[in-house]
């Protein structure tokens, strides 16, 4: 596994387009280091080849599928109420295609 360093976190933040303070990077690094240490502890267990990785904490399955019945949608004003800028009922963005 790739080693996590402050620089790796900064690179990830830059790719995901958000900013953090130096203190936040240090805190996140410490939390991740603690997680990595736990994973290293697990990796010491032997004979794990026959086990599938788990996605959910318990092996839960369901059979539920939603019936295809539409419900009233949001009012347009509501749908757009969080948008910083709108035009003709649509969300307006800075140009995304060059």
């Amino acid at each position, binding site marked *: 596994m790739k080693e996590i360093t402050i620089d790796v976190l900064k690179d990830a933040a830059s790719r995901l387009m958000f900013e953090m303070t130096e203190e936040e990077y240090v805190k996140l690094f410490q939390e991740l280091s603690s997680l990595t240490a736990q994973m290293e502890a697990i990796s010491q267990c032997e004979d794990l080849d026959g086990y599938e990785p788990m996605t959910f904490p318990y092996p839960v399955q369901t*059979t539920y599928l939603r019936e*295809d019945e539409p*419900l009233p*949608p*949001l009012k347009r004003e509501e749908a757009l109420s969080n948008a910083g800028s709108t035009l003709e009922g649509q969300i307006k963005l800075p140009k995304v295609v060059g």
Partner: protein
Amino acid sequence: MNIEAVIGIEIHVELKTKSKMFSAAPNAFSKTPNTNVAPLDMAFPGTMPVVNRQAVVHGIRVAYALHMEIARTLNFDRKNYFYADLPKGFQITQRFHPLGKEGYVTIFDLQNQPKKIAIERLHLEEDTCKQLHFRDYSLLDYNRAGVPLLEIVSYPDIHNGVEAVRYIEAIRNIVVYSRASDGKMEEGSLRCDVNVSIRPQGASFFGPKVELKNLNSLKNIQTAIDYEIARQSQCLASGMAIVQDTRRYDEAKGKTVSMRLKTEAIDYKYFPEPNILPIVLSEAMIEEAIATCPELYEAKKERYERMGLTPSQASVLLSDPAMASYFEAASEGSENPKTVANLLIVEVNAYLNKTGNGANISRFPLPPVSLKRIAAYREDGYTHQQCVEILEYCLREKARPEDALVALGITKADNDEEAIAAVVETVLAANPQSVSDFQAGKDRALSFLVGQAVKAAKGTLNPSVLAKALRERLNQEK
């Protein structure tokens, strides 16, 4: 060096459901932007995806029609990327466990021989929002965000533009006749990405892969593929490297144009979708989905042929599902569906073409029951010409066929034995040479005499009755 093209196709099909893939917002066409939107479609915090049963049913039916192995558990995954068309920052798809895998569809190749095109996977996912780009800004409409999509990915088994078009037609026939989708390329409910590479004939390696986008009609796909094969072959012949890139088809110029280079594969950091638990699909559910699937294109085609239609008549009717439905309604219980098919293909299509503006059978004013009646007149002995007159009267006067018959004063002429005998005698008297030819054993002379008799009767006598009378009369002479 003989060059072989290697083509793989990814098809996205918008599913026809009442609500979206993971939200209960209506999945309906709306001209007003952002009016078919639920909080989930805009990724409002705290919203959770819930899988639409009908989308799964459509997926199972198409997977079955493509002879695929159908998953017994539905699993979804996240495809992460940051772009304005995707409010959540990820798309919910099925990366690791597709609903269907390892299937095939049979098409006809360039020599019209059956050929199996292997299909790697079929999976469910959600559509993105629609973006409109302007010079200084872009606009987002979320009506399409979350619309259920079926993605069907072929193996690179296709070798030319004609096979590609036939493969897409075969997939379209399945999704349209199972009523999973409208399958309209021009409206974007069926979209294709085509990967083209070339290599020396028979080689087992692949050349650099070029992805073609913006292919919104079958004609464009064939032209774009042919252009791309020629372009890559020319690169190879002149010693230039073929660059792995994404190209769009420029319809006006009839050629492909590079959009961007594919330097490295994008890492979408797929991982299992934590907000949707694995969903077990019971055998009963899968069986019911398959058993209740509407009759598919191939089954209909075989049935129409058993009803007496030629393969080409069946294909013409089936090229438009609305036309096929009309035919089925008009031929139900009919003694001779071929007559209904003839009227539809020749006379009704001529009327629709004349009406223009892309008029189709769904706007044809005559109900199927009226066409069935007219076909029954034809079977009862009225001539084709008389039936056409009845049809035209019905359309012009918005009348019923039985009223048209009275108003036009049309009577069955073919039962008039005297009239038939008179025509037969006139034709025999006028063509003594053909009569002696026939008597000398030249069967072709009979066809000529029948032709003359039909002409002399001016469409008022039934040609088959006329031919029969002529043959009987000639045999008496022998």
